[in-house]
């Protein structure tokens, strides 16, 4: 058992260091988070912009009719002239050719090359294929989600080089899909600088302030608490400052772009539905000092965007000039609640708390004593390092990731909003849902073989009956082998250990074959004895018996070896004395053999129970859960949930629950083992 080293608050320099190191880490991480927030905010804005432009285009496409791609062409040209970063856009409409639904003539329009406008898709054109594939995807999504989740009919993806967004959506007339429209935008988010000088300044002043606190505030507890508060405050300042400098900045650019896009869309195809976003965008760009009311007032239903811009206050940027950056006041464009802002806040809070812990450890001198311990025993730690790394990689990492997975569930389908990608698979955070579902029997009734308690019951039955038989048979054989008059003891011992020496999955497969209904040895023997065939896998009890037989075959040699060893160590004079006293064989067994076997047998039983509880191979290979999962135990059920049903999170929660069951069992029996250790004393 390791003991905590005594508290030894270091000298002033040590205390300043204990503060400065977490503060420096905080600053470095804050800059990293700023970079992430910057790109995330930028991505969000680009995505929003792409959606806005597409919404405008498809609304226009639905009104102008899919047979007039040249009008879409005009619209795209207007947008491009106004500064929208459109690389190309297309409208695909379909006319069936031949007998097969997937054979279609398609027309499309492209802005970047007017020669191609209105032509059919051509396999010679590289981008035609891309447009075609995206169009196909949109069609499929429309079919799947038009009724239930219209938002999922939209296709949005970044191109492989990451510098462009492809977006596409359905063109709908009277609820029917008449075509698809899509466009490709160049990523155009502004290069927002990282707030390096701000972070540096805050860091330096924070460390200086901490030094002053340590120097002048009396009382080590008070100064420590103050410094801790200062560290958290630093995290808060970072969060606020970065949000202002990075996230808000991006949002102001985005507002300016909304203005450009809306004006351009309205110019291309006048549409009253563009007025409201236009007014909002103007309000955001103009800022609090500008007469927003006057702008809104100019939005009469008849007026076009051109009139509106003419009426807008002087100094307001015009489309085309906006993209290079807009001078706007600090103001209403606060990004409260955007995911970039929220994520930044959470990250800095968590980091701040962890670093606070680091500071406390340093302040109390623990880190220093840990450091000197490693230094003093450098060789020992060096030798242990490979094993420790192995443990971390092969034991703790899988353990931790399994634990993590249990709070998530794999997402299937196209609704990927709010998912986390782990190992290339999208997951959604579920909190404790998986555990509630499993422990609360929410999905499966108690009598259902997939119910947790049903499986738990089978598992306990399985474990108890197995261990009971292992001990009984093992002990009986050990007593037989101990008999002094028995010849060829060595041969018997070897033969009886053979089942244990064979890899258990091979044994399991052999038994599986022996229980075969038609060709299996077991049924042939039953037939020879005049008993009927048994369809082993069709009923719970027969399948369970087959599993049990296999595992008893596999498990008794271990118990036999343990018992043999323990029996050898019982002094013979005890039996002699008992015989002199006239004790019967049963009394000798009951009062000498059993009590003296207990210390050796008890740990073996505990171990055997854990092995049996998680005996995957036998269950999976022999009955395979037949019939209908009824003979599955918890571990095979977890495996099936993961790899047959693909529910990784649910299965991980199963594994965590199994872990806790065994943990409680282990702790409980540990106590009992300790109590029984005194037998020989």
């Amino acid at each position, binding site marked *: 058992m390791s003991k905590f080293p005594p508290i030894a608050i270091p000298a002033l320099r040590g205390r300043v260091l204990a503060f400065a190191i977490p503060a420096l880490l905080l600053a470095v991480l804050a800059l990293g988070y700023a970079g992430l927030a910057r790109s995330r905010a930028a991505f969000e804005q680009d995505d929003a912009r792409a959606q806005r432009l597409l919404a405008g285009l498809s609304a226009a496409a639905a009104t102008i009719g899919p047979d007039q791609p040249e009008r879409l062409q005009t619209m795209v040209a207007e947008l491009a002239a106004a500064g929208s970063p459109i690389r190309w856009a297309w409208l695909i409409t379909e006319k069936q050719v031949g007998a097969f639904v997937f054979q279609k003539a398609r027309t499309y329009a492209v802005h970047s090359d007017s020669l191609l406008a209105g032509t059919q898709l051509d*396999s010679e054109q590289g981008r035609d294929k891309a447009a075609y594939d995206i169009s196909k995807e949109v069609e499929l999504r429309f079919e799947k989600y038009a009724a239930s989740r219209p938002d999922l009919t939209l296709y949005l993806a970044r191109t492989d080089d990451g510098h462009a967004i492809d977006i596409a959506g359905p063109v709908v007339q009277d609820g029917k899909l008449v075509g698809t429209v899509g466009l490709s935008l160049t990523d155009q988010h502004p290069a927002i600088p990282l707030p390096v000088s701000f972070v540096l300044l805050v860091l330096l002043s924070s460390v200086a302030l901490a030094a002053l606190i340590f120097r002048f505030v009396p009382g080590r507890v008070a100064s420590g608490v103050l410094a801790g508060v200062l560290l958290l405050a630093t995290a808060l300042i970072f969060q606020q400052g970065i949000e202002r400098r990075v996230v808000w900045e991006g949002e102001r650019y985005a507002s300016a772009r909304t203005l450009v896009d809306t004006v351009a869309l309205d110019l291309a195809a006048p549409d009253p539905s563009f007025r409201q976003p236009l007014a909002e965008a103007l309000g955001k760009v103009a800022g609090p000092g500008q007469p927003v009311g006057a702008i809104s007032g100019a939005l009469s239903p008849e007026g076009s965007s051109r009139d509106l811009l003419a009426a807008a206050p002087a100094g307001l940027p015009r489309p085309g000039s906006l993209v290079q950056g807009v001078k706007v006041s600090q103001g209403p464009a606060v990004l409260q609640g955007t995911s970039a802002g929220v994520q930044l806040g959470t990250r800095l809070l968590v980091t701040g708390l962890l670093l606070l812990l680091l500071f406390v450890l340093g302040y109390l001198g623990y880190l220093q004593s840990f450091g000197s311990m490693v230094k003093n025993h450098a060789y020992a730690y060096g030798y242990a390092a490979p094993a420790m790394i192995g443990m971390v990689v092969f034991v703790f990492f899988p353990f931790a990731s399994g634990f993590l*997975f249990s709070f998530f569930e794999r997402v299937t389908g196209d609704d990927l909003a709010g998912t986390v990608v782990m190992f290339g698979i999208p997951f959604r955070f579920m909190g404790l849902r998986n555990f509630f579902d499993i422990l609360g029997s929410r999905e499966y009734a108690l009598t259902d073989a997939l119910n947790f308690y049903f499986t738990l019951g089978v598992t306990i039955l399985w474990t108890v009956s197995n261990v009971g038989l292992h001990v009984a048979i093992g002990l009986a054989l050990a007593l037989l082998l101990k008999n002094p008059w028995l010849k060829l003891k060595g041969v018997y011992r070897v033969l009886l250990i053979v089942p244990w020496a064979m890899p258990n999955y091979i044994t399991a497969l052999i038994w599986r074959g022996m229980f075969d209904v038609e060709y299996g040895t077991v049924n042939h023997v039953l037939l020879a004895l005049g008993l009927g065939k048994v369809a082993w896998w069709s009923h719970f009890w027969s399948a369970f018996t087959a599993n049990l037989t296999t595992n008893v075959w596999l498990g008794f040699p271990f118990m036999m070896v343990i018992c043999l060893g323990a029996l050898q160590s019982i002094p013979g004079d005890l039996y002699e004395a008992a015989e002199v006293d006239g004790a019967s064989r049963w009394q000798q067994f009951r009062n000498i053999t059993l009590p003296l076997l207990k210390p050796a047998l008890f740990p073996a039983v505990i171990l055997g129970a854990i092995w049996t509880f998680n005996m995957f191979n036998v269950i999976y290979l022999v009955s395979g859960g037949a019939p209908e999962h009824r003979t599955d135990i918890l571990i095979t059920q977890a495996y099936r949930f993961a790899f047959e049903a693909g529910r990784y999170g649910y299965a991980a929660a199963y594994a965590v629950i199994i872990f806790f069951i065994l943990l409680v069992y282990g702790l409980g029996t540990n106590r009992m083992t300790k109590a029984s250790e005194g037998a020989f004393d």
Partner: protein
Amino acid sequence: MTRLCALATVLLALAIAGCSPATPPAPAGDQPAAPGSAAAPQPGSAAVAAPAAPVAPAAPTVTLPEGVAGKVILWHSYRAAERAALEKVVAQFNGAQAAVVIEPLFIPYDAFADKITATIPRGAGPDLFIFAHDRIGDWAQSKFIEPIEFLVGTDAALLGRFFPITVESLTFEKSLYGLPLAFKSVALIYNKKMITEPPKTTDELIAMAKKFTDEATKAYGLVYENANFYHHAAWLYGFGGKVFDEQGKIALNSPEAAQSLAFARDLRAVHKIVPEDVSSILVTSLFNEGKAAMAINGPWFLGEIDPKIEYGVAVLPTIVPANNAPARPFLTAEAVILSAHSANKKAAFEFMKFLTADDSAKIRALEGKMSVANQAVYEDPAIASDAVLAAFRQQLLTAVPMPNTPAMLSVWTPATTALSSVIKGGAAPEKMLAGAVKEIDYRLKGNQ
């Protein structure tokens, strides 16, 4: 520590699972019948020993679009006559133009699908390969194979030359994956010594079969793998049952499906014309020993028939209890499929067109003895006179494409379990089907 390690092993397994594609693992030895073996009959074994009639060498001309050139690797698992026919067509194509070179490569059938899955995503696989259509959904979802309707474009004649059902088999989510080469389905194969006129209805079949059934000498009127879901599909669809409905939902638990199970059970339990526990080996040995008058099997079976046995092939009988509806066996379409990672798709597609052209199909039909998918070929007198090809072509009219959705992979084992417990264990069909559907839903839950 042991506890920790044991648990960690499980968790490690879970963690590793995260890295692998989310397809269910191939079921281990716990299933009654490997779906792969039934679902995708081995193409090579269909080769019959009869020497191929030489086809008049017509020098084909190939005109390639401008700029199409390079090497195209074609994987196939054809053997014997089928392989010779394929290689002849390849040689014709390579000889007719200089720009594109087709390199055929034989891959053993057993390893074929695994090799495709292992090599194509790494860009090391073939440009084209020949395979049955039932894996298309799976591969299309994993983006291993290329939808070709964009290459087909508005060429209505190209697709018009095939039997429409074979093109439909290759369709997944409104896209076309590959061009059909041949089709396979089971039909009624009978011993001509015993049966002169094959039965037209199941009542005739049962009556005829009873004459040849004698349990004492282990002779039976009919042998077929009755507990194998692939073979059972003929009855299932014949009765009007389905695996999936139009929306792609499992529709196996229907009164029609229950009737079909009861019908298959009664062939054994009531009429006793089918042996107990039929395996594919038993079908072959009984038929070859002359102890089976009729068998239900596919073209791959013909190569296994003892040359001494004189056999005929006929369409499956109509089902009397289903108002004389025809039996509707599963159709497997064999197709030439384009890899999504091919660097030379246009050249590959040119060869796909050539390989599936009527002239090439004629060579494959006559020399390879394949049931080719081109309609016009069957008007050729040399082929029209081949009774076996004609019978399988006739059977095509009632065949249903085997579903190609990935969900089908989750159907085989539960459906076969239900079928065999009805036939062998005498369980109630409705109950077993309900259980099978529940199991399929469980397997599909996380995968759709």
